[in-house]
């Protein structure tokens, strides 16, 4: 792999001589190997899930996919019902999240003052890094009782809508799961939608303004329609993420594998069933059936993600509309008409329209409806952020009494033993994540270089599969690591957990690195090449150095993303004491106040670590870019 050089003079680097040239010869093979590794990972994930589920499909046939029989002892998990549960739950989540997310994005992009918007946008992007286990736990302990006591009885009592909310108010329900998924996906949804809205050219907005449109009309009639593909992509990608969320859903959905008759009834999804059934499945057919649930989930999410990525690409290319080149069909045949007599006549009758008059007459109504719309958007922005702020506040309030230096440096001890801490879990998380970084970073960078260097279909396919892979549910990656490491080695291990995290990181790294590399101006490279430097040297001293801030921030963001992951570690680490996220999962659900408090203190530490990583990533990118200029 080409080492990154940190010399003070690029000329010296460029002309370093023979040794450098010899090393340069390894450049092409290196990125080819990197791309091969990446391709192999993608194939391995698919193959492992396919082979793992083969026994179930061989035994039950394809009807396994729409089966309604729930009989875990025989390996029948009512896949059809779980698919319906998944679709209903995530569909409800998107029905909730889309208007709120879109409103919030409109508020951020069009309405609030620019300085506030910048800060709020950064905040929203940071919120996207909040580990889902923390959200799930908070929902279990805070939202669930609230739903049982207030929300569900209220919805049930509504006149017409109440029909969709019939039955006993348990708390855990499809509705609660949908709300949790909405809260979790909102930051991503808002950030992506805002990007799409910002992408609408200023010329289009000004055209509408100049025609007398109110700010709200500009949003409704021009900005939103133009950004529709991007927004569609944002919603679809959020849907993909919601479909794959397993642990948080299992905590709050009530786990009832039955066709839902009411939104406040308990339900089950493919993900929640995998979490519940994987560990204790009957070896052989039972395990294979659970993996088959994973296969179905994989197909669903990949399909959704493919649609999302295609929309995203459509949205990106739609962008500012370039006029067709002259000579395009219909472009060159110009017939200059004489000012027809009818014009004058039409003009006089046209005066009767009295557009300005009408504009004046309708203005108060337009301003009022605009104000209503704008207030709704700001409310949506608050609604998108408020739950996560409440969650943060709750975490701090519950963690505070348990936080101490000793808590950080003492090892995890069993329940009932006093004086414990979470040092083993912190170390475990650092070790697993660190190992994952070591595994993923080189392959990620080399694959990005491959995508950068090579034109054609193969890189395009790899790029697309990276985008799709980044939407594969983390629990499926967990099953993958279980199949390729834990099963053959017969024991869970840090390596297995790290492999899962590395696979999760890889696509993010590839795409972020490629974007960073592409941001280096081509003329700089040409300047390097003009000095007679070899391609490998140009890449090392110009491209890689120029893209360094982006590379670092991309890798750190990937790191932040996986640091809070729980699902992939569930089946791969030997003990919950070996990762903070697992410890939160096991301790947080305990009914004992002292243990819960420790879980929240752990959540606080994890949250701080993840937010710090994301903040450093953004900060590093920002300062380095600024200094480079």
């Amino acid at each position: 792999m080409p080492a990154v050089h940190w010399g003070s003079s690029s000329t010296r680097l460029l002309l370093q001589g023979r040794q450098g040239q010899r090393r340069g010869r390894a450049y092409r093979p290196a990125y080819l190997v990197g791309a091969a590794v990446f391709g192999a990972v993608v194939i391995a994930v698919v193959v492992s899930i396919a082979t793992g589920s083969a026994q179930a499909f061989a035994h039950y046939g394809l009807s396994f996919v729409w089966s309604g029989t729930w009989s875990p002892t025989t390996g029948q998990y009512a896949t059809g019902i779980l698919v319906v549960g998944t679709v209903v739950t995530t569909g409800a989540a998107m029905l909730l999240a889309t208007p709120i997310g879109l409103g919030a994005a409109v508020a951020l992009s069009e309405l609030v003052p620019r300085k506030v918007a910048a800060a709020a946008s950064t905040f929203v992007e940071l919120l996207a890094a909040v580990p889902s286990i923390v959200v799930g736990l908070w929902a279990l302990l805070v939202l669930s009782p609230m739903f049982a006591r207030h929300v569900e009885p209220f919805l049930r009592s509504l006149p017409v809508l109440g029909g969709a909310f019939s039955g006993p108010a348990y708390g855990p329900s499809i509705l609660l799961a949908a709300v949790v998924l909405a809260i979790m996906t909102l930051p991503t949804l808002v950030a992506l939608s805002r990007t799409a809205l910002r992408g609408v050219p200023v010329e289009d907005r000004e055209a509408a303004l100049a025609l007398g449109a109110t700010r709200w009309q500009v949003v409704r009639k021009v900005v939103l329609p133009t950004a529709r593909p991007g927004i569609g992509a944002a919603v679809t990608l959020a849907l993909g993420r919601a479909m794959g969320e397993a642990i948080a859903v299992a905590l709050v959905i009530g786990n009832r594998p039955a066709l839902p008759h009411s939104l406040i009834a308990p339900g089950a999804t493919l993900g929640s069933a995998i979490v519940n059934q994987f560990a204790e499945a009957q070896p052989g057919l039972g395990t294979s059936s659970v993996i088959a649930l994973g296969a179905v989930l994989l197909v669903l999410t990949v399909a959704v993600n493919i649609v999302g990525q295609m929309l995203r690409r459509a949205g990106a290319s739609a962008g500012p509309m370039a006029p067709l080149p002259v000579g395009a069909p219909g472009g060159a045949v110009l017939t200059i008409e004489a000012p027809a007599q009818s014009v004058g006549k039409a003009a006089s009758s046209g005066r009767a329209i009295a557009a300005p008059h009408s504009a004046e007459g309708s203005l108060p109504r337009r301003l009022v409806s605009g104000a209503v719309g704008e207030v709704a958007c700001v409310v949506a922005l608050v609604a998108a952020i408020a739950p996560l702020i409440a969650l943060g506040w709750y975490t701090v309030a519950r963690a505070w009494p348990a936080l101490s230096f000793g808590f950080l440096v003492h090892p995890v001890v069993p329940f009932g033993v006093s004086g414990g801490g979470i040092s083993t879990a912190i170390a475990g998380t650092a070790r697993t994540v660190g190992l994952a970084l070591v595994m993923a970073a080189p392959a990620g960078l080399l694959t990005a270089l491959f995508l950068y260097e090579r034109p054609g279909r193969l890189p395009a396919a790899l790029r697309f599969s990276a985008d799709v892979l980044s939407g594969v549910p983390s629990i499926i990656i967990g099953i993958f690591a279980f199949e390729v490491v834990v099963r053959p080695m017969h024991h869970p291990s840090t390596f297995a957990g790290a492999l899962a995290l590395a696979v999760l990181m890889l696509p993010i790294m590839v795409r972020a690195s490629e974007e960073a590399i592409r941001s280096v101006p081509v003329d700089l490279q040409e300047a390097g090449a003009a000095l007679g430097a070899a391609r490998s040297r140009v890449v090392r001293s110009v491209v890689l150095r120029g893209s360094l801030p982006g590379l670092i921030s991309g890798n750190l963001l990937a790191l932040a993303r996986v640091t809070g992951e729980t699902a992939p570690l569930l089946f791969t680490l030997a003990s919950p004491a070996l990762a903070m996220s697992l410890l939160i999962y096991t301790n947080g659900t305990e009914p004992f106040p002292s243990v819960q408090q420790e879980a929240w203190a752990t959540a606080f530490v994890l949250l701080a670590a993840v937010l710090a990583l994301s903040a450093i990533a953004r900060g590093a990118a920002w300062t380095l870019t600024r200094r480079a200029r």
Partner: protein
Amino acid sequence: MKRRAAVAALALVVPLALGTSIAVGQDRPAARVADASGKDITLDGAGANSIEPFFSAVFYNYHKQYPNVTINYSPAGSSVGVSDIQQDTVAFGDSEIPMAAKDLAKAKGTVLQIPVDLGGVAISYNVPGAPKGLRLDGSTLAAIYEGVITNWDSPALAQATGVSNLPNLRIVPVHRADSSGPSWDLDEYLIQNSSSWVSKTGTTDPSKTWPLTSVGVGEQLNSGVATYIAQTPGAVGYVEYGYSLEAGFTDASIRNKVGDYVAPSSTSIDAAGLQAAGKLSASNFNIIDEPGAGTYPLANFSWTLLYQKQSNANTGLALQRLFTYVITTGQLQAAKLGYAPLPLSVVALSKATLAKVENSAGQLLAT
């Protein structure tokens, strides 16, 4: 330019270094206190989840006493414990339900199955104003879990419990969403005591996965069920007695074989163990609904699995010593965590089984 490079390098290297250094720190040799064998040894185990609190406490204390012995127990589930032992990839396994003949046939030798802890399943409820020890029999409990009795003030419940002033509150039955020993225990009890349960579930084979999921709420692990009960007025659910004890739950008195209503306690669970002690074996492990006054009907042993023939004599000896500790000194901790101490006759059975451990030459390893 240099500073920029340094910052960048730091940003990339720090998390790594942190990981590695801590990883190294993990393996630091603990202060040596010689075990009888004196050598460093690591014992890997895997199996049941519900015994994890007990194991982790006992293993923690054992390691404190004998730092040269490190025990890693992975609570991945009973089936994992069984399959890992079959493939000989762990030093010991653990299962709520001992291996049946067909499971044993897949193993790579004779597997010793040793009862190591005695636990009970409490039926806990959160009903404001209700008395402790509400009397429930099999058919009433089944009716609750079938969704037939839906309110705490229903006449059927008043008649069964003998308590007529229960509040007007919806019953929320909670069951385990994952596969578990407690589900098996309660299912078995209901199969034995309610014909309607058998007809509703359509089988007389007890299942570790709760069979009737269309009623009430499913929660993960003992902890999930316990947390839900704690925060939901009207909830009733089954948890390891240890959880109920620690959480201060109100437990129902369950009708046993001889018609007694018995609340869970170390004594009443112990009584179940005692009833079974004489005839207990790996193939006759079921102690649900044992006869005898004062016997709690929802009790079970947890079974540790290990190979009789140990190719590494040191490992064999270490295992022998560890589990001798677990079934003797360790039982003191059992009571604290809400498990019942093993009855002496069962300890004797466990000891006798442990004594069968051999080296590769087929010679007994002396404890």
